[in-house]
């Protein structure tokens, strides 16, 4: 295969329609006779529901239906949780609260009206008699003795305990020269996709057909779950994910509204739409992170790490969503990062609190892991008075150590960590940066340099390690005109696979990328698939496409060879022609061979007509991208402002299909990390009220908060898939927060500060400098 398009920075095929605002998100779709749903949500974090009076709402103008939890008792199954941890307690979320509400924003009733304003206004007519209960907000207090359990039948608020241990930890700590301890807090975040959630359901009683349009990352899994929740035949459910405006994991879920809107459409025999407001999105769409990590590390004086022990308190919120309990376990698996640490142990206590559930948010458990291990490396360096780069280098596995087995039970596929580190040091000119820092310190200016060498787990599969299938599907169909439809089970929502899969197809079949249409997100067209998350769409979904392309190519080679009188093995696909290697005369146009497959008069004997192939690809292992990020900040002594001065990112995601898209993913991921490091924090007050409930109070990074992000790459292909690609969707968020945190801690070192918890808000930094200004070194 000649690579004319793979590896080239083709502009995204998706962008013209997105930039012009002429593509269709759920809320852009309108059906005749559409009705609108609105949800009444609890203003209390914790309360018993004494009664819900819908009588006034039911009589309001335009209202056709109003239901409380009692009205749908038994008709809809609770929100599903696919994660299984031994001995975990149940905490199924009812689609509408019945007797008790457990977080602010939990849906209590739903109203359907002929227009969305009537539906919204009718909510004000619903009278709910709440008996407020004491909210449990702090996860440590939630598991303290005497705390009231949130869920009936539980003896406490511990959802589960999970343990992982590998290597001889006792020996590690016994032979250590030093043991360093630190508490790290990874604050709760709100994913904030630009498009909030939205659902439309349409039911055709004659055909019995239910169609659901939803802003989701997992159309097929959602279809199965809606069928199960409503006890409705799956064969008659079609789920469509139209244009989806960002997910970051928050749409990798099954929500009450998705099942309820479908139920309402069936009940009414009318199409029903629900569009989530931004405030609802803040309160009732999953949150991310929220861990307290108590970590201990055993080190030798020379900087080698002997053992790592960590206890994690994971604040899960009140109920499980699809993967809630699973997310912190990824932190456990990745806790040793990109280092050869012979012994490690993690204990996780999952805790129920009166908050929205946490679940997968870009990185999902792995940003917490890199934060943990990278902060540890910096603390070790500070304690031993060594350069943080040298401590890292000392503990890297070498290229010939791969596949490398971690004490946590993973097998890292491939890696050359030093190469990425050296490239980053070179791009940043690390030596010069340190000299500049020393010079500025003398002038009373506080520059900090942070280094993060990370590894992440992605390309989510194989199935044995996944809650619901670690494979992906693809059908490639060459249509009679020679155009090619690529149906992928992945569900891109910003990742750009309409472009990259076409690039791949163009190189395999020797035709132009414009000839390809990548179809996704419609369960009635695309074979059953898993979806887009965990940086898997290219590594797993792309490989399924690649294998289907090869199958189609092989068939075309046989047809062309038959037509020109040559050997299928000798056929070359290029420039829209299929030609025999030995003679340019022995050649047919691509379209001619395709036509032969459909007209079916000149096919080789015993060959089936048609030109279509389907593959279900399951990788043998995860992939482990890695890299080095270097961040330079300067802290304003007067006001505590953290200014980004430089950011260098060297990422290795294996082979690259389109460098422009990789660049976009890396930059976007880093910016999302800047958000966590500097600004973002979902804050619940002691009464369980989400006081960062809108964009005025929940600060996202702006362009003006950033510096130019300098990117470079090393390429270490993975042996796990034939494309050698690893995945890059989450690398930025996984690699960046420790670099930012390291830089801030480094800048504050003259004040005797070695660790600060995120977010690095001005008042926090200012207070730290003020408190210790007497002991500036």
């Amino acid at each position, binding site marked *: 295969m000649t690579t004319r398009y793979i590896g080239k920075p083709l502009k995204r095929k998706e962008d013209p329609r997105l930039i012009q605002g002429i593509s269709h998100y759920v809320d852009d779709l309108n059906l005749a006779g559409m009705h609108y749903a609105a949800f009444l949500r609890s203003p209390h974090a914790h309360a018993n529901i004494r009664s819900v009076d819908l009588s006034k709402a039911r009589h309001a103008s335009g209202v056709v239906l109003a239901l409380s939890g009692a009205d749908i008792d038994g008709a809809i199954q609770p929100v599903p949780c696919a994660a299984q941890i031994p001995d975990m307690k149940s905490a199924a979320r009812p689609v509408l609260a019945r007797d008790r509400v457990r977080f602010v924003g939990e849906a209590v009733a739903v109203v359907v009206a002929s227009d969305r304003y009537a539906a919204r206004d009718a909510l004000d007519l619903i009278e709910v008699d709440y008996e407020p209960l004491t909210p449990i907000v702090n996860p440590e207090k939630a598991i303290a003795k005497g705390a009231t359990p949130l869920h009936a039948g539980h003896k406490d608020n511990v959802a589960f305990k999970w343990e992982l241990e590998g290597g001889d930890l006792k020996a590690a700590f016994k032979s250590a020269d030093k043991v360093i301890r630190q508490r790290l807090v990874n604050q709760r975040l709100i994913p904030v996709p630009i498009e909030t959630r939205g659902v439309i359901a349409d039911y055709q009683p004659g055909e019995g057909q239910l169609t659901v349009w939803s802003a989701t990352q997992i159309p097929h899994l959602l279809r199965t779950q809606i069928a199960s929740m409503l006890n409705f035949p799956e064969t008659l459910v079609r789920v469509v994910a139209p244009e989806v405006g960002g997910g970051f994991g928050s749409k990798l879920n099954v929500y009450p509204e998705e099942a309820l809107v479908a139920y309402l459409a069936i009940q009414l025999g009318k199409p029903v739409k629900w569009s989530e407001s931004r*405030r609802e999105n803040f309160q009732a769409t999953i949150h991310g992170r929220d861990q307290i990590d108590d970590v201990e590390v055993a080190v030798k004086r020379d900087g080698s790490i002997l053992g790592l022990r960590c206890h994690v308190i994971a604040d899960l919120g009140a109920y499980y969503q699809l993967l809630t309990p699973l997310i912190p376990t990824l932190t456990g698996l990745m806790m040793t990062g990109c280092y050869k640490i012979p012994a490690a142990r993690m204990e996780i206590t999952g805790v129920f609190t009166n908050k929205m559930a946490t679940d997968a948010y870009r990185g999902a458990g792995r940003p917490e892991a890199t934060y943990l291990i990278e902060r540890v490396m910096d603390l070790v360096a500070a304690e031993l008075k060594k350069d943080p780069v040298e401590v890292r280098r000392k503990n890297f596995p070498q290229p010939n150590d791969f596949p490398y087995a971690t004490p946590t039970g993973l097998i890292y596929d491939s890696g050359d960590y030093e190469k990425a580190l050296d490239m980053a040091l070179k791009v940043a000119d690390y030596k010069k940066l340190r000299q500049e820092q020393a010079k500025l310190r003398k002038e009373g200016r506080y520059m900090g340099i942070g280094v993060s060498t990370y590894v992440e787990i992605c390309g989510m599969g194989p199935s044995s390690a996944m809650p619901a299938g670690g494979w992906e599907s693809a059908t490639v169909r060459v249509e009679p005109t020679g155009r090619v439809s690529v149906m992928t089970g992945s569900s891109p929502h910003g990742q750009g696979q309409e472009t990259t899969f076409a690039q791949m197809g163009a190189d395999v079949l020797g035709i132009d990328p414009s000839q390809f249409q990548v179809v996704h997100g419609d369960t009635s067209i695309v074979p059953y698939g898993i979806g887009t998350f965990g940086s898997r769409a290219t590594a797993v979904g792309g490989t399924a496409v690649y294998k289907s392309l090869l199958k189609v190519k092989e068939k075309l080679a046989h047809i062309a060879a038959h037509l020109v009188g040559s050997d299928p093995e000798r056929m070359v696909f290029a420039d829209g022609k299929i030609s025999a290697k030995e003679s340019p005369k022995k050649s047919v146009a691509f379209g001619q061979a395709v036509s032969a497959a459909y007209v079916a008069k000149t096919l080789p004997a015993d060959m089936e007509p048609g030109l279509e192939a389907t593959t279900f690809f399951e990788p043998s292992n995860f992939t482990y991208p890695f890299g080095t990020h270097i961040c330079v900040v300067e802290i304003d002594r007067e006001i505590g402002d953290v200014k980004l001065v430089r950011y260098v990112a060297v990422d290795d995601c294996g082979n690259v299909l389109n460098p422009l898209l990789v660049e976009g993913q890396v930059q976007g991921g880093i910016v999302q990390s800047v958000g966590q490091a500097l600004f973002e924090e979902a804050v619940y007050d002691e009464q369980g009220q989400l006081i960062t409930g809108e964009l005025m109070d929940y600060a996202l990074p702006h362009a003006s908060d950033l510096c130019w992000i300098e990117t470079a790459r090393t390429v270490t292909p993975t042996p796990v898939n034939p494309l050698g690609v690893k995945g890059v969707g989450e690398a930025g968020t996984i690699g960046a927060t420790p670099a930012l945190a390291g830089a801030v801690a480094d800048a504050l070192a003259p004040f005797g500060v070695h660790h600060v918890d995120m977010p690095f808000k001005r008042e926090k930094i200012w207070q730290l400098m003020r408190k210790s200004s007497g002991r500036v070194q």
Partner: protein
Amino acid sequence: MKLAGTVTLPAPPSEVWSLLTDAPRLSRLLPGCEQLEPDGPDRYKAAVKFGIAAISGKYAGTLEFAEKKPPHSLILKLDGKGLPGFVKGEGRIELTPKGDTTEIAYTGEAHVGGLIASVGQRMLDAAARKIVQQFFDSAKAELESTKGAAAEPNSPVKAHRKGN
């Protein structure tokens, strides 16, 4: 949300006490108060209009006096809900004579939920302080005007007192 402060009112404690515990007069001092009707001993049904940032609305609820030690101290309990959310609070007021005037020391805590909590949180403290200030400013004006009227008993107030 916590509030605390002191304020001096231009009348002796007995007069301040009667002002603060007299519902009809009190209702005139409370910013946005549209209704304050007896609902049992030391308990009133209240309707208050209150706006913060872009969220304004009416709250219905109860106002209660507890642990009354005239003219030294009392506890005020507030419990209200409306479309923008709910408020539940308790405040302690202490009166100390200072010559002809009274020094009032107040401390209170309120829990706020619903829309006003998620959207108006940043402005809540300032808004609450403003309401307290408006209240005491009105109380000052009321006491000064009564003084001007030669401290004659106000008949409609008296009539209502009977009702209590």
